């Protein structure tokens, strides 16, 4: 960063323009008419803990490459049991440093649940029944640099692990520079009759490609900056690049296969810290990882080669995903590899495979929402992934001009570039394109938090029912037990049962004066068919499906009282006492 003056200027401009709050302003209830920078996210987490000390625990789960603390907040009502004895709902955000509104969704949900606990019945019930885990900002270095440095909407996504992108033996030596000092890295263009671009006749701020046979007007030189290392290329070796969302140990692939993978799984501090946090909380059964953008709820698998998920799990995802689509209008429930692109070693791959949790990536914000137009698949295809769509750009410019008074677009201005000579600098600022303007933030955070709350209301809720007990013989009894789950989410993913990720739930019959002679799953209650377990009939291993039940039959010898115990890694523990008569 050679241009310290510009940089400082940029921070000032940027912080006044975006209305960030000062640390001492942070009070509960939190406000969502601005974005929280890294320090303020930490302050907000502390403020929530201070306001609700009985319901929350906060913890530093690790430190980043640059030494910043990564904070978690656990929301649990100790009156209704220990956190580990309840279904765990895990929410995080901002694993990509630039995707900042993800942290606001986390903060909003914490704030909303705490504020409405005891006020709204649904909130009270889901808070009492679940343990919520939040890591609002995972990539804390990225968040810090996104706020404090000049950026494009997409830079500072990765980790601060130096990498020699241009293979010249130097590390991270050619960042972009904020030449015009506006706090953003925008584009540079130069007048050039042989260029491939010309001014868009409908809006002079935009460029269109020249048709074959036409002379051009502009050459696009790329991101704002200079050639720091004198190698003839500009901005070719900025931070990293290690993408924290490709650094997880499930279906991981090395960097030559998956750009940004890092040298090995969990080579990043933050991925390692979050993994430790999650492995210590085996009750986690629901995961939401928030990103931006595009308006999507994505589920795995991340690559085609893994094959489709089990039908049993898909049906659960479908209920949650289809409801999320209704809760956040315009958002689409999609399959990661198929509808987007292949990714190796991403976070939800890890959480589905190794934590055994139903896992969504929430891609927050769709630029269409600025002008309230729906996502148009045909239009999207006409302007593929990397491309630009001028019709959409013109709409967004109108939004910039008339709704946010020009604050998201920097008009082209001439600049005397040390290498290129006279150029123009301008374009979308860093707070544009992937982020809702603060006035739209409240709507975004509430609706997306609601998608999480819907899933939290559907975590497994198990009841034991001993619905039949009959005397067969002198002191031999036949007992039928039912485990009922009224909610959508089963007690285990089918995937984790199939792959023996951890032992299944246990149903145990025990008592001082009894002996379980036989026991097994009742496969047909009318025909009395029982799949008796050959050894140790007093312990049965099972999974309770969503919106369903499992039934077991035991032949018990003896008399007096006995207990039926249900033990589940993810759906809590229950004990009921009965007696034989």
């Amino acid at each position, binding site marked *: 960063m050679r241009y310290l003056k510009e940089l400082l200027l940029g921070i000032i401009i940027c912080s006044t323009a975006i209305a960030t709050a000062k640390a001492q302003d942070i009070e509960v209830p939190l406000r969502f008419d601005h974005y929280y920078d890294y320090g303020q996210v930490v302050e907000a987490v502390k403020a929530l803990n201070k306001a609700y000390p009985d319901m929350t625990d906060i913890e530093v789960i690790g430190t980043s490459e640059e030494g910043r603390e990564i904070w978690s907040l656990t929301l649990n009502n100790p009156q209704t049991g220990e956190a580990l004895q309840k279904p765990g709902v895990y929410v995080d955000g901002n694993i990509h440093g630039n995707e900042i509104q993800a942290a606001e969704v986390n903060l909003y949900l914490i704030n909303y649940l705490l504020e409405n606990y005891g006020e709204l019945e649904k909130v009270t019930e889901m808070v009492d029944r679940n343990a919520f885990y939040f890591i609002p900002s995972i990539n804390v270095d990225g968040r810090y640099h996104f706020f404090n440095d000049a950026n494009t909407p997409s830079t500072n996504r990765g980790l601060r692990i130096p990498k020699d992108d241009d293979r*010249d*033996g130097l590390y991270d030596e050619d960042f972009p520079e904020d030449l015009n000092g506006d706090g953003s890295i925008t584009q540079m263009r130069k007048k050039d009759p042989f260029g491939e671009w010309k001014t868009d006749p409908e809006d002079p701020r935009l460029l269109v490609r020249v048709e074959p046979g036409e002379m051009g007007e502009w050459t696009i030189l790329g991101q704002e900056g200079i050639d720091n290392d004198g190698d003839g290329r500009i*901005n070719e070796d900025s931070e990293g690049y290690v993408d924290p969302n490709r650094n997880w140990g499930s279906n991981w692939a090395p960097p030559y296969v998956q*750009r940004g993978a890092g*040298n090995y799984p969990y080579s990043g501090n933050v991925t390692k810290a979050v993994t430790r946090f999650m492995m210590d909380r085996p009750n986690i059964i629901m995961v939401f990882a928030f990103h931006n953008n595009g308006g999507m709820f994505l589920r795995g698998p991340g690559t085609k080669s893994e094959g489709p998920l089990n039908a049993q799990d898909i049906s659960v995802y479908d209920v949650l995903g289809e409801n999320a689509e209704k809760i956040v209008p315009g958002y689409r429930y999609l399959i990661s590899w198929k509808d987007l692109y292949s990714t190796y070693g991403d976070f939800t791959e890890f959480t589905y495979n190794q934590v055994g949790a139903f896992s969504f990536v929430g891609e927050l914000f769709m630029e269409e929402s600025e002008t309230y137009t729906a996502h148009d698949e045909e239009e999207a295809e006409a302007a*593929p992934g990397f491309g630009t769509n001028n019709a959409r750009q013109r709409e967004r410019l109108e939004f910039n001009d008339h709704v946010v008074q020009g604050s998201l677009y920097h008009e082209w201005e001439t600049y005397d570039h040390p290498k290129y000579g006279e150029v123009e600098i301008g374009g979308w600022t860093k707070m544009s394109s992937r982020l809702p303007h603060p006035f739209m933030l409240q709507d975004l955070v509430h609706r997306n938090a609601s998608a999480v709350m819907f899933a939290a209301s559907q975590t497994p809720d198990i009841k034991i029912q001993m619905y039949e007990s009959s005397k067969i013989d002198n002191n031999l009894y036949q007992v039928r037990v039912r485990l009922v789950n009224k909610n959508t989410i089963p007690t285990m993913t089918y995937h984790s049962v199939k792959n*023996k990720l951890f032992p299944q739930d246990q149903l145990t019959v025990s008592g001082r004066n009894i002996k379980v002679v036989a026991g097994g799953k009742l496969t047909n209650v009318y025909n009395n068919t029982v799949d008796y377990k*050959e050894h140790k009939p007093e312990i049965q291993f099972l999974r309770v499906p969503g919106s369903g039940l499992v039934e077991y039959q035991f032949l018990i010898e003896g008399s007096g009282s006995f207990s039926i115990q249900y033990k589940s890694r993810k759906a809590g523990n229950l004990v009921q006492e009965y007696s034989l008569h």
Partner: protein
Amino acid sequence: MDSKNSRILFCGMLALGILFFSLSGAIAQTASTNGNEYHTPSQVNDILRDIHDANGNNTKIHELAESPGGHQLLMIEIGPEVHSSKKTKPAIFVVGNMEGTIPVSTEAALYLANEVLVSEASSSKTWYILPNGNPDAAANYFNSPLIQDSRNDRPHNDDMDEQEDEDGWEDLNGDGMITQMRVKDPTGAWMVIEGEPLLMKRADRSKGEKGMYKLYSEGIDNDEDGQYNEDSDGGVNVNRNFPHLFKDFTETGGAWPGSTPEVYAILEFAYAHPEIAMTYSLGATNFSMVPPKGGRQGSADYSQLEIPESFAEQLGADPNKTYSMEEVIEMVQPLAPPGFEITESVVASFLGLGAVVNPMDADLKFYKELSDQYKEYLEEKDFSTERLDPEPAKDGSFELWSYYHLGIPTFSMDFWTLPEFKEEKKEEGSGITIEKLEEMSSEDFLELGEEKITLFLKESGAPERFSAKMVIGMVEGGQVTPARMAAMMKQMPKPPSAEGVDPDDKALLAFNKNVLNGKGYAEWEAYDHPALGEVEIGGEAPYVRNTPPASMLDSLLSVQVPWVLEVASKIAKLEILKTSATHKGNDVYEVSVWVENTAYLPFPTAMGEKNQNPKPAIITLTGDIEVLSGKTRTAINSLGGLQVKKYSWIVRITESDEIEINVDSAHAWGDRTELKVGGAQ
């Protein structure tokens, strides 16, 4: 349950020789490398510390990690730069006994450390030597009862019940080792091999054989779930926990690559030390003798990529056609935002191409040549090469990770197998061997005639559908050559002999009789089992197939280990061969530098060139110059063994006409020189 039991059986198919081995090895009390002894993990660590105490100037001890069982993974560094963290000379990273079940490889690592210390190699390079990569498992060899098990001590619920590690083996007959139990049972799948009362085989119903026994590993059903020894202590098999071709959801591979601290520490260490120019894994495989195996399906062919329909239209590609990587990059580049470079990795990511799974042809060339040299070397030393094949490298192993991910020359070595058992030649045999077949021309082969060919096919266990007539037809028609046929036959599993004893078992039977005096097997003896009733306990002793008697250690290691030094002497070395300056007019010169890799091995491997992991060497020009054409910092991404490449620049001299030229490399020495351009024409 059946397959599970048989796996555990297999793990537990271990036995005698305990007396034999433990007397010579396990009871070694002093930390000494003299003599023929096996050393416990803690003795090994003591030896490393002793070596360091005696050689403070050129050794250093690294504490890499602590295993789940509480063993320190100590590594010794030997070299001229132990006191500086940034090395200027290349390093060799040697790991021993990653499998944890191969005590001889740990001794080899210690032997190597001592060899290095007295050799020139200790001043020209850095050596990182980790004798016990899997110390928890390595400790098993010194415990009683004797168990051969690659897993570390991390608890694992193998049978997915309510307890962890609750049903391990028991040495019921008190012979100091875990062998097998057999129970007479009409539903059993196993039978005694006729004429070989020590050996059992699966009955083949198609041959009218009938199973008579059920087989179990030795022990009781501690948790009374009907399974025997299905949840013993441990753990993760450390040498399946590396990132290349790691498999999710195996019982012993660990949760993810690097999930176990031994492996994570090695990953961290290797990437923190770019001076590592070569790795050597001492253990079960032998890349020194047998090049890494290819032929696996699944490598994406970068010359024939398919574009899925979802991208095809945007890219203007035909989903029914294939394209080369270069073509795809060209298609994608115009769609990328300005300044964003489309690389192979970007394309590989979005097309989901997956990792390379077969060794690169260019690398196989040096593997093959060095393997031939190694065999010659052994022959010169009168070292018998009549041994069983080394094991193929396993998915998730250190050596595959090193080759595919680190992208540097990766070698491995095993030190002993059972001597190959030579059947006495039957008079009526065909007289043909696969080796002979390999050398034959098609004409030679056809001359043998149908009768001999039939006999040969039968001897070599070819599937019955390959009749002599058919094979003759194929050779006549040119569909197959004898050499090709030989290559195919080498891939086939070795045929069971007439009695159903496979060649490896024959080798063991012979060794047992000739060398071990019967201690390689426990004779089957009756035992009254608390749950199974009348059983017999017996079978093969643990470690007999891969662990030579300690008395053989010196003779094995003194010949084989020095080859590591020989291969290490061949690692790439970059030198400036010559420079030139040509006057172009005014103060403008063309400067050329010829860089030579003066060593045999390439810089880096072809795999390393592909995965771009090893750091490139950088040529820099410094002086009062303006570079008009070319880069002031130029990467040398690859330079084959003994190859020369020329690099040129056009420069303008601003003041002094002296240019300093540096070739900097993290792992291939590098070089520098000065060039005076004045007077150049």
